[in-house]
């Protein structure tokens, strides 16, 4: 058994090392945020009161907005991420519920027809008839959806996709490199700006993009959660002739509060931290916190205390999220989502 003990000791040693390795960077910005400029520019300092005299000047500067708006981006980040998370989890939960309780059959051929009509039709409309891009998308979407939904009802040869494939379709949005869709969305939004619908650097534009960005997570996580909810309660309600919508809103959603909370937190974390969409889709008014920080990096290189304050503001809510999810993880709630 001595070999076992040795491995056990080795493991606890490793855990301690990794623990320190995880915490040191956090300790570093925590103390850097209260450093006076001299404590930064004269070499690395580590401990307040021993290495340097702490000051709250950096926080005061940030709040008073002496060097550029700081409160604005925080406000933007909060508004954008909260609204997008709510929409995304709500739509995702509805879709996930239908994927658990109903049967979907989508014919591959109908899907292919949809792709061909949209790509071909879009090219023809914009290139030959020079229809404006947003209009072309609206027309094509309507036509292609109409035709393929009708086609799906007809007897078509070829494979049929089931609920798992539909779920995979949602989740696979996440596998695309985000630059592909972020860039495409940027092109689309700038076309809409030209038509007078302000989408670039606006709240609706960001919320729309981020709601879709969060959907893969919310569909995936909520589906796993709904699968653990017993169907009997709903069946009893159905016998009483209560509509599916009411069942969903009045019975299923209240029952799945833990799942909704966990999913919201994960989605919120991803949207709060997101960088690329924010970078492409905002320019000034609706800049989010990560974009502000990236900008500070280039504009005020060595003013570490200011950068640390910004980073801490972005990190603090996430520490709460991680603590909460760490608790949930112990209760095994997230265990289901890996299957």
């Amino acid at each position: 058994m001595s070999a076992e003990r040795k491995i056990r000791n080795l493991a606890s040693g490793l855990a301690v090392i990794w623990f320190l390795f995880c915490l040191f960077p956090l300790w570093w910005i925590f103390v850097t945020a209260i450093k006076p400029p001299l404590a930064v520019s004269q070499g690395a300092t580590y401990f307040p009161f021993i290495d340097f005299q702490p000051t709250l000047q950096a926080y005061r500067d940030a709040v008073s907005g002496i060097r550029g708006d700081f409160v604005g981006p925080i406000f933007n980040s909060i508004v954008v991420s909260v609204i997008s998370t709510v929409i995304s989890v709500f739509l995702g939960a509805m879709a996930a519920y239908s994927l658990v309780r109903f049967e979907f059959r989508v014919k591959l051929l109908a899907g292919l027809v949809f792709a061909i009509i949209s790509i071909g039709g879009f090219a023809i409309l914009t290139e030959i008839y020079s229809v404006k891009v947003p209009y072309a998308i609206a027309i094509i979407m309507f036509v292609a959806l109409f035709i393929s939904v009708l086609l799906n009802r007809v007897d078509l040869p070829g494979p049929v996709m089931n609920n798992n494939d539909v779920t995979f379709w949602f989740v696979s949005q996440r596998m695309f490199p985000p630059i592909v869709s972020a860039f495409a969305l940027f092109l689309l939004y700038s076309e809409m700006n030209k038509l007078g619908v302000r989408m670039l650097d606006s709240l609706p534009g960001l919320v729309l993009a981020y709601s879709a960005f969060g959907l893969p997570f919310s569909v995936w996580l909520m589906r796993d959660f709904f699968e653990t909810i017993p169907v009997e309660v709903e069946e009893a309600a159905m016998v009483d002739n209560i509509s599916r919508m009411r069942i969903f809103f009045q019975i299923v959603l209240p029952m799945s509060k833990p799942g909704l909370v966990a999913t919201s937190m994960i989605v919120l974390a991803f949207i709060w931290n997101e960088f690329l969409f924010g970078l492409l889709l905002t320019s000034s008014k609706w800049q989010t916190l990560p974009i502000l920080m990236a900008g500070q990096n280039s504009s005020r290189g060595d003013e570490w205390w200011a950068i640390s304050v910004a980073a801490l503001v972005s990190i603090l809510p996430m520490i709460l999220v991680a603590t909460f999810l760490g608790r949930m993880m112990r209760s095994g709630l997230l265990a289901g989502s890996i299957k």
Partner: protein
Amino acid sequence: MYPVRYEDMVLTKILESKHLFIWPAFLTVLIVSLFPLVYALIVSFQSIRLVPPIPPRFVGLDNYAEIVSSARFWGSITTTAIIVCISVFLQYVIGFTLALTLHHNVRGASLYRVVFLLPMFLAPVCVALIAKMLFHPVLGPVNDLFTIFGSPNISFLTVPPLAIAVLVIVETWQWTPFVVLLMLAGLQGLPSDVFEAARVDNISIWRRFRDITFPMLLPLSIAVIFIRMIEGFKIVDTVFILTGGGPGTSTETLTLFAYNEGFKKFNMGMTSALSFMFLIVVIVFGSVYLAAAQRIVRRYK
């Protein structure tokens, strides 16, 4: 049978409909992800510049041909692949080990759980900014550590191999928690009677791991590595902050290359083509990986 009014039936049918549940999400994805992609696909066959504005012109596969023949493109693939392969390997090894440690409840496990989870919830931009301070060539603590051993000041971010090493460290720091999270959940889901039996038979801890735990978690491991690879290929924020792709273009990743092409040169057709090439690269890497993984699984069966 009691009489049912026709209008009632239609109304219930709509309210009962599964379509009402799934269409809002479906349409959102369609509008935000898929149709812009179709648009970008068309643009990728054109030559469009915003600055100076040139009317779009159909150029066929010219953009793609130019990309494939540019050294910068292959350079960015190599950089991205190096960062992804090394950092995902480290994440998996360290993450799995930590998950095993936590699973066997070392002292303080509940505190470790939260702290080990934390890095993956921080904004990559934040993490990169912190790393930039830590790896500062003169004022950073890492430099302090090296000077203790008598080394001269090292400029970590301007020497290409060192800059890539820093990026790998940052990625590993931030994303090992993801592996810990999933592998721990996997470990907790394993049937305990097998391990009881192995313990009774006095099988050593190492063989228990090699012959029971590892093979049983192999499918999960493959999935975890796959997710991390796909996610790793998207790396941009960290590089954007830490090196900006420099020195030169030696640490430029695929996403950063596409971004620079689009927002410094405003060459829209090229950027669209580039992002589709990127998609192809990810698909190729993903398929190669999955094919290799399937082979390993088969060997274990």
